C-alpha cells in the first residue's frame, strides 16, 4: 500500500495504519531522537512518546502530504520535553554524568551530539534537520513554523557556534573530569 494511502487511512482513524507508518519511518525517528538525546534509552523513550502523541493527534493533521513533517515536529517536541524534564529534575552535574555514562559507540558522533546539546533550541533543530536529515530549507521552515530566511540565519549561527565548540572546550566552561564515560 502506498504511503499516502496509509496516511489517509490513519487520518480516518485506522490506528494499525498509523502504526505501520511509524514503523516505516522508525529508523529515521530513532536516529533523530538519538541525535537529540545522545543515548539509546532516552531515544527509545522519545520514539515511544512520539508514537503515543501521534496516535492522539493524528486527526489534527491537515494535509496528508505533510505527514512526515508533522511527525518530525512531534518528535522534536518530545525530545525537548524529555531534555527539559531531565534538566528540571536532575542537577546538571548529574545529567552530564548520565549522558557520559551512556556513551556507547561512535565517539565522534557523541562529541557532536554533546556540542549540539549546548546550542539554543532553534539552532539545534535547524542543524539537525538540515545536516542530519537532509531536509530542504523550505521543509525546515514548515516544521519549525518560521520564515525560510530565519532558518538560514539559524543555520549559519548554529554552524558557527558548533564549529567553535567541536573539539575545543570553551574557555569559560566549568571544567569537569568525569571518569565515567
Amino acid at each position, binding site marked *: 500500500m502506498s504511503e499516502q494511502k496509509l496516511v489517509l487511512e490513519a487520518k480516518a482513524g485506522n490506528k494499525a495504519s498509523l502504526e505501520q507508518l*511509524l514503523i516505516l519511518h522508525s529508523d529515521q525517528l*530513532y536516529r533523530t531522537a538519538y541525535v537529540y538525546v545522545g543515548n539509546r534509552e532516552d531515544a527509545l523513550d522519545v520514539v515511544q512518546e512520539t508514537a*503515543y502523541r501521534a496516535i492522539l493527534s493524528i486527526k489534527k493533521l491537515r494535509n496528508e502530504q505533510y505527514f512526515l513533517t508533522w511527525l518530525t515536529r512531534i518528535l522534536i517536541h518530545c525530545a525537548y520535553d524529555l531534555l527539559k524534564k531531565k534538566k528540571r529534575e536532575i542537577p546538571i552535574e548529574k545529567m552530564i554524568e548520565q549522558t557520559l555514562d551512556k556513551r556507547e559507540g561512535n565517539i565522534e558522533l557523541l562529541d557532536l551530539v554533546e556540542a549540539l546539546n549546548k546550542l539554543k533550541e532553534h539552532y539545534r533543530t535547524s542543524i539537525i534537520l538540515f545536516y542530519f536529515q537532509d531536509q530542504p530549507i523550505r521543509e525546515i521552515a514548515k516544521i519549525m513554523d518560521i520564515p525560510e530566511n530565519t532558518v538560514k540565519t539559524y543555520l549559519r549561527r548554529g554552524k558557527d557556534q558548533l564549529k567553535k565548540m*567541536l573539539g575545543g572546550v*570553551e574557555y569559560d566552561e566549568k571544567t569537569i573530569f568525569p571518569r565515567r564515560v
Partner: protein
Amino acid sequence: MKKQFFQDEFNKIEVPESDVLKAIQTGVKRANTGTITPKRKTRMIALSSVAAATIVLSSSFLSPTLSKALADVPVVGTFYGNFNDLIGRNLELQTLITEINETSSNKNVDVTITSAYYDGAVIGVTFKVKGNVKAEEDGRVSGMYEIFDGDGAISDSRELTYMEVSEDGYTGHIQLHYPKTSLPEETTFPLEFKRIGEKEGSWRFDVPITQLAYETINVGQESTNIEADVSLQIDSIIAGNASTSIDYTATLPSEGKHDQIRLEVYDDQGEQLHLLSDGIDLETSKEGNRMIVKGRSIIPEALQGKTEYLDIQPKVAIQEPKQFAQLNTETPVNLASARQNLAVNIEDILVEDNSVTVDFQVNNGEKGNWDTMFFHDFAKNDVLLVKETEKEINQKPLKHSVTALDKEALRFRSTFELPNNFTLEDYVLSVNMNSLSMNIPAPLEKVRVTLE
C-alpha cells in the same frame, strides 16, 4: 561543515530495531489504554521455557532440590517486556527472574516490588504502583528513589524513574550496578522511593537478591603505557547469564587522579562490543604517590560461547595541566605533554603595538584519525593570551583570530588584539591540551582474554 559527514554519521547510528518497534507499539498501546485486552502470549512463552530453565537450574544450583530452585526462581510473566532493559529481558527469556511481592504503603499509595534479578554485577528490580497518583500530561508517572540510602560515594545512588501505565496502575523498573568490588551471593539492598508522582513520602524496601550462578574467569593480565605512567591489570571477567563484567585495577601517578580509564572491547571477529557502562569506579586508594583505582565495565550480554576471546584495548584520557609561555621567551619553545605524545611548538611570537602574533604547530603535524578542523578548534579555543595573575582561572582571554598557515602540518597563526593598558610582563600564553587528550586517549597495550 560538510553535509555528507553529518549524513554519514547519522546513518551510522545503530538502530536497535526490535526495541524501536517495541517502543512504537508501547506508545500506540498507551494511547489506546483501556481498549487492549490482557496479553495471552506471556504464559505460553513461560511454559515453553520451563525446560530451558530446568537445565540452567540443575547445573547452577547445587544444594537445593529442583523444586526448591524452581520456587526460588519461578517462571514469571513478562516483567521486562515493556522495559528497555536488555539484561532483564534476556534473563526473563531464560526464566531467571525472581518474583517478589513486597508492598510498602504511604499516603494512600502502594508500591510493590514485583521482581528482581542479580546477574554478575547487575541488579534489576521491577515494581508497580497503585493508588491516587498524579500522572504527567503524557500519562506516565515519575518517581524519585534512592539506593543504599543515597550514599554519595556510590554513583547514581539517587535517581529519577518513569513508570508506565499498566492495567491497574503503573509499573516501573530500575537497573543498577552493584557498587562494590566483592559481590555477595545473597544480600538485600536498601531501596527507598521518596516521591511518587507529586507525593513526597517514604516507601522503603530491603530488596532480597540472590546472585544467579556465574563464572569468574581470573585473568591477571597486565597492560601498561610507560610514558603515561599508567598500568592496568584486568583482574577478572564475571561471566553472568546475560551480562559480562570486566573488573580491573588501574595504577595511576598521583597527578593522574582525574585521568579517565576507557575500555574498548572486541570479539573474536574484531567487532566492537557495546558497553552498558564503562569505567565504574569501585574503590580508589592512594599508595605513596600512586593512585589505585578499582574499576568495572559491563557488557549487557553473555559472551561465553559467542566468542572465544575478548580483545581489550584499554585507553587512558590523561588530564593535562595547563602550560604557559612568557611572551619574551626565546622561540622556538616546545610545550610538550610529560605523559603522552601531545605538544604545541611555539615557533614565533611577534609583539607589535596593537597585537601579538603567535605562530605554532600542534602535535608536530600528526593528525591521527582526526580532521584538521578539530585541531583548528583547539588552536582557537585552547591557545590563549591571558593575564599572568589570572592564568589558572578561566577568565575571558584576549580577543583573537586564528588562521591556518599549513593545514596539513597543523601550523596555525593566532593574532591577539591588545588592550590599551597592555604590558608584556603581565600576560602569558596559555596552552590547555586537555581537549586534545580527552579526545585522543593514550592507548595501553592490548590484552587478549580467553573466555573458555
